[in-house]
């Protein structure tokens, strides 16, 4: 992995984003899966590792922190510095934050997905920052000739209390950079934190209130042209021919050519129009006449997809994801059983910033700027697809105008690179909203058949079968194994404590590409499993929360249930008042939600309030967590009651917000959010708040009306 011959100190300085930095600390990633080792820049040179690092301090004392993860609203731009500043002992408002370039060697896993920014990096970041602090203190102590133990760090200074001497970090960086990094530094106790755990203001907010935050679409580089691409609306289709005669008449249009972009291990074809403004490119695209070759694969309608899923659930048993006891035998023999089907729709990510990417292909390198969730994957993928050595593919992250999973793919940067290569110059490829909305990959719509038997007020048999697309199959994933996320969202203690249980996955494919969407399979599983549990609780004649409590014996879960009970007034509610609950777990965090609904005089129901309690263990910024849960609830509300991707003839029907409606301000109920405090490891924050909302809502509707909603989306006014 490390090529000691080719990487030199000179090389490091040349590629370092901050060549004036004197003291740099970073991780050396010895290989995937191994613990990170902390090294400073000088040591890194000895290793022959070309590396940047998270923390840079220059002689003036200016601290720059690299954010190795994408900022798409979830708060990495805040969380990473807040963690680093805590152990480094610097003021948060005195540091600069810079997005790191994609490089797995320097930053480890940079893929901003799976709610992993904090939980995946915080231990290393704490250690790194504490190490830097200790080295600076040592440098100060040595300089003054006093014992290190008499010195401490505070607000960017090293202080010798007995003498009252103090020096700012800038004066010490040179000496510190020559020290060897200490091995085992002592981290602060949680009770001593000054920054972590506090609802500090986000560092990126001011840039987002005056238009200065640079999103992908805002990136401009000298000489840049603009491109829009008419892509085949069916992923597997090809360009048969195209007529660009009208396109070429549009002032500003410079070039028109066929283009092929990689979408994982398949390719999407289209025709690119390159012009001197976005508008001219879009006009040129509209004027194209393209004939597609869409032979060789099925063109499905939504109705057909769901018909096939229903049929599969009736006739097939599927592959066992988890099977224990004798669920089938008990269900077969039972005189009374629940046998219900839940249907969930395909969804579109609909980030407010449509996909876009700037690429500049030059003979010796390719540089990319864009709203990118997975810079290292982009680097990897393009390097392979275009046969450019990896270090010559430079991937820069801008701010992301939302991501929700879609901006973790490599297709749009690859396409931009291909177009730049063709025109031999820098280009920004702009996806129109219509492109963005119709081309996927989408969240798969999954149908679940749930069968259960209650005996003596307890679950005697529990069986869930799911039929829906596996996101890995169309990318070449193994098809003879069940979906590894068949129960994502469903709390593990249930599968541990229910004796007779089966979770079966029926392989199901269509030519429609599917992929991650905020909270992934938990976003649909949560609805099925938690609605089914509610139905079982009612069958058992038990309070839905008490019923769940009996299976969730872990101390953390009991405390979470206590809290949601307390804040929502669960125990003092009256039956039939319209309260519903759901609890799901994903990305190592558990969220309980209670939803309260009431009847509208004009028919239908309205959501009065949502209570949410999150247990995400160790956390950085409670206000960021609250914001993420607010957003998750809004996104879940839309997916449960407003929008879905429908297909006709193998293509997505709705192509813009005029028909693919979004929740708007008047639709949003008050949301009351609480965070559990404990010493457990950090869990995810950006996604776990989404899955419990839909089932809590439909469970509340059942409580109010006696009507069970088993198909999403549904109309609140139609209930």
């Amino acid at each position, binding site marked *: 992995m490390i090529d000691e011959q080719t990487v030199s100190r000179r090389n490091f300085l040349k590629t370092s984003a901050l060549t004036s930095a004197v003291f740099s600390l970073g991780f050396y990633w010895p290989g995937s899966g191994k613990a990170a080792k902390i090294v400073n820049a000088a040591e890194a040179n000895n290793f022959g590792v070309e590396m940047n690092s998270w923390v840079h301090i220059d002689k003036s004392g200016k601290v720059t922190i690299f954010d190795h993860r994408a900022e798409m609203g979830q708060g990495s731009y805040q969380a990473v510095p807040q963690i680093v500043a805590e152990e480094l002992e610097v003021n948060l408002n005195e540091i600069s934050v810079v997005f790191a370039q994609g490089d797995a060697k320097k930053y480890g896993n940079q893929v901003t997905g799976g709610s992993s920014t904090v939980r995946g990096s915080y231990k290393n970041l704490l250690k790194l920052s504490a190490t830097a602090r200790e080295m600076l203190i040592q440098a100060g102590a040595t300089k003054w000739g006093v014992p290190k133990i008499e010195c401490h760090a505070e607000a960017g200074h090293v202080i010798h209390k007995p003498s009252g001497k103090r020096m700012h970090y800038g004066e010490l960086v040179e000496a510190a950079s020559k020290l060897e990094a200490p091995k085992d530094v002592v981290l602060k106790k949680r009770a001593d934190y000054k920054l972590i755990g506090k609802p500090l203001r986000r560092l990126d907010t001011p840039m987002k209130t005056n238009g200065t935050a640079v999103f992908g679409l805002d990136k401009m580089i000298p000489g840049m042209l603009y491109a829009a691409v008419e892509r085949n609306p069916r992923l597997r289709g090809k360009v048969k021919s195209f007529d660009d005669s009208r396109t070429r008449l549009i002032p500003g249009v410079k070039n028109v050519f066929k283009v092929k972009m990689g979408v994982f291990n398949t390719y999407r074809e289209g025709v690119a129009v390159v012009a001197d403004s976005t508008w001219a490119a879009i006009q040129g695209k509209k004027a194209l006449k393209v004939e597609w070759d869409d032979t060789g694969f099925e063109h499905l309608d939504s109705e057909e997809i769901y018909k096939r899923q229903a049929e599969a659930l009736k006739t097939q048993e599927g592959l066992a994801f988890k099977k224990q006891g004798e669920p089938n035998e008990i269900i077969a023999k039972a005189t009374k059983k629940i046998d219900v089907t839940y249907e969930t729709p395909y969804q579109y990510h609909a980030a407010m910033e449509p996909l876009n990417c700037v690429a500049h292909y030059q003979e010796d390198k390719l540089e990319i700027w864009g709203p990118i969730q997975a810079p290292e994957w982009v680097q990897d993928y393009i390097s392979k697809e275009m046969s450019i050595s990896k270090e010559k593919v430079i991937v820069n992250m801008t701010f992301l105008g939302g991501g929700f999973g879609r901006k973790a793919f490599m297709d749009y940067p690859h396409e931009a690179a291909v177009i730049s290569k063709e025109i031999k110059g820098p280009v920004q490829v702009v996806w129109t909203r219509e492109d963005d909305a119709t081309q996927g990959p989408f969240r798969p719509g999954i149908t679940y058949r749930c069968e259960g038997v209650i005996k003596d007020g307890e679950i005697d048999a529990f069986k869930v079968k799911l039929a829906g697309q596996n996101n890995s199959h169309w990318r070449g994933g193994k098809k003879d194994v069940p979906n590894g996320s068949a129960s994502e969202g469903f709390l593990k203690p249930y599968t541990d404590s229910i004796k007779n249980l089966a979770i079966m996955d029926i392989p199901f494919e269509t030519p429609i590409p599917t992929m991650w969407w905020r909270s992934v399979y938990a976003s649909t599983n949560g609805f099925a499993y938690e609605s089914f549990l509610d139905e079982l609780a009612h069958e058992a004649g038990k309070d839905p929360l008490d019923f769940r409590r009996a299976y969730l014996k872990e101390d953390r879960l009991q405390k979470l249930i206590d809290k949601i009970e307390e804040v929502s007034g669960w125990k003092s509610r009256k039956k039939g008042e319209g309260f519903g609950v759901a609890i799901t777990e994903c990305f190592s965090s558990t969220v309980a939600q209670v939803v309260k609904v009431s009847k509208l005089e004009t028919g239908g129901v309205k959501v009065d309030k949502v209570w949410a309690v999150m247990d995400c263990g160790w956390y950085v910024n409670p206000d960021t967590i609250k914001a993420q849960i607010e957003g998750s609830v809004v996104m879940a509300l839309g997916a449960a009651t407003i929008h879905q991707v429908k297909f006709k003839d193998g293509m997505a029907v709705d192509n813009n917000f*005029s028909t693919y409606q979004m929740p708007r301000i008047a639709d949003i109920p008050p949301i009351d959010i609480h965070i559990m405090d404990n010493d457990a490891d950090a869990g995810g924050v950006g996604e776990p708040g989404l899955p419990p909302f839909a089932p809590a809502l439909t469970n509340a509707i059942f409580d109010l009306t006696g009507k069970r909603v088993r198909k999403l989306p549904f109309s609140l006014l139609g209930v």
Partner: protein
Amino acid sequence: MMQDPKNGKINFVSMKTATVLSVLLFVIAIGASAFRKDETPVKELTLSMINKDSVESVKAFETVYKVLMSSRCMNCHPAGDIPLQGDDSHLHAMAPKRGVEGKGVYAMKCSNCHQETNTPGLHTPPGNPEWHLPPAAMKMVFQGKSAHELAKQLVDKKQNGNKDIKKLIEHADDGLVLAGWNPGEGRTLPPVSHAEFKKAWLTWINKGAYAPKK
């Protein structure tokens, strides 16, 4: 929000709006029934030039009514304070409010989206320099009106924007009325041409502006 599960079309309206709207419909229904009388022309129109013929007038109004109740006309003459949208006359997405002058409110003024001309493309804002709803003090509601009620309303100066017969006749060529026949891509035209509509409109008025029985 509201979603019709049958056709999957989505109408956007806040819960509060839905309540207000149904109350309004109720009030209008009660109010309208109080005016119901038989085929009597309204005073202001009994001019010597009028060649009265209740049969022909009422017959012409059939065409007028069909046009006025088509989505191209009715959508901007809603019963509530939110315009309608589309061939199925669902509540306008994002629930823009009428406002005092009928030109919208705050950041949601009609002309913020509706330009002087139609915006190209499907599901894009149609345009007209005068794009607006009737003002709050003179709502000129079409939605939910019977032919009888609508005919009465059209000639009632207190309900028609103080239009006398001359102004009513001129109104057939009003810019916004004409906009109904230039609705933008993907929208159905009114059931008859503008020429046929105008002919029926003039016939109805010139023959006495009689209101049909129902």
